[in-house]
């Protein structure tokens, strides 16, 4: 299964590198949303809860774009038939798609977080960085797990990008709650970020639940 998953992942990353469909769009989108927030809130610099909320909403919306495109190459080029004909575990498809989405999210954040720090963040980014990176990584695992599951669920429906978005957003609300709560003290200029640890545990539990859940049910998707 590992080999199959890695093969599909390599294929996805190769396609992404050649076509550049998802990641540049997600990155561009997140920068645009940050600009929109500047005008919508009419604020030049943000800190605390507002900064944390703006950053996470931006990242979540960018993730929505990635989820919508996750099975695009299979759908448009008919690659799914080949994958389904191969004698491999269906779960390998989920693992590959989740890892691909995780990679996209990490790349987008490498772009969007510095841009956010330059454009909108009031306090200095550097002291907040270790905590922020931990939060981002844990949240990304959860988002990738949910995103891959939701993308597969919506893949067979007629209005798939709509359904994927509407499924994705409520499902990631707990992750958003935990991630914004974990990030808030980091952006408030507080030196001791107590409370962050508890929220990181929540994020890890969230990711774990959806990983287990997806592994459990994914076999029933993408059949025949």
């Amino acid at each position, binding site marked *: 299964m590992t080999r199959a998953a890695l093969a599909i992942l390599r294929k996805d990353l190769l396609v992404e590198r050649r076509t550049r469909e998802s990641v540049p769009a997600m990155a561009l989108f997140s920068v645009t949303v940050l600009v929109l927030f500047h005008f919508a809130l009419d604020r030049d610099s943000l800190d605390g809860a507002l900064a944390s909320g703006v950053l996470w909403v931006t990242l979540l919306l960018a993730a929505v774009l990635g989820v919508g495109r996750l099975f695009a190459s299979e759908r448009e080029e008919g690659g799914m038939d080949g994958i389904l004909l191969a004698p491999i575990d269906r779960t390998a498809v989920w693992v590959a798609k989740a890892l691909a989405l995780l990679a996209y999210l990490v790349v987008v954040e490498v772009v969007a977080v510095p841009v956010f720090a330059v454009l909108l963040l009031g306090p200095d980014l550097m002291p907040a960085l270790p905590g922020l990176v931990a939060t981002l990584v844990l949240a990304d695992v959860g988002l990738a797990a949910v995103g891959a*599951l939701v993308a597969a*669920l*919506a893949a*067979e*429906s*007629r*209005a*798939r990008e*709509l*359904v994927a978005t*509407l*499924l994705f*957003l*409520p*499902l990631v*609300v*707990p992750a958003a*709650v*935990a991630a914004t*709560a974990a990030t808030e003290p980091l952006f408030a200029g507080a030196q001791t970020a107590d409370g962050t640890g508890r929220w990181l545990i*929540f994020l890890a*539990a*969230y990711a774990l*639940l*959806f990983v287990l*859940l*997806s592994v*459990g*049910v994914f076999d*029933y*998707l993408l*059949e*025949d």
Partner: protein
Amino acid sequence: MAVFGRGLVTLALITAAAVGIALGMVFLYAPLDADQGFVQKIFYLHVPLALVALAGFVAAGVMGALHLRSGDSAWDLRSYVAIHLSTILGVGVLVTGAIWARASWGHWWVWSEPTLVAFLIVFLLYAVYPMLRFSIEDPGRQGRYASVFAVAAGAFVPLNFAIVRSAESLTHPQVFSTTGSGMPGEMLATFLVSMVAMALLYATLWKLELTAKHASDQLRRLRRRAERRAADPLVPRPGGGASAGSSRAGAPTLSGAAYAAPRGGD
């Protein structure tokens, strides 16, 4: 062959009695709440309704898992009807919650009340279920995908409550912490009876819709069978040449043939 309507009348009668008793206890037996006064009566409606709706969502997840395991489409139907009913009752939960918030805090919506906020998130998720289900055309796949959704969302419900509850400050009226601690005996008894009545009401409505849905599915299969027969005149028709009243002779044969037909889905 599953028959869903069995015992429906008995259940409905028991439900009617239980709802009557519960209403009587709420308005005649339970003491007035010291803090909130008469408004607290909404508690006996809102909380059981919310708990029953949530239990329905979780149960639908279990039924979805059973469908995926067994491949029996009856479990998919049960899961679908449970989600449908819970979503509709969910509207009631949100509206009664809003009314209660307005009555006791003066606002129609209070974000600091984590239970209701968590319920809204669950409701928004389940509102997508029909959209997902009915945008998939192949019946077997439709049931399977819907069941996967039911399982995932059912597991999401407790997680969501855990996280949202710990996120919001607990500015709750005492009665809201439904464990019953600090509730006078009469209030607790009234609450428990309301809970039972609401669960029975849910069961009755669930069975009712299940029966109707199942009957309409069977009718559709029967009609498809008849159309196929009509299109192919070489197939001998049951009851051919029989006199009037062949409906009695013909119907069992025809439905028997429909039952023998391969079941839809997988």
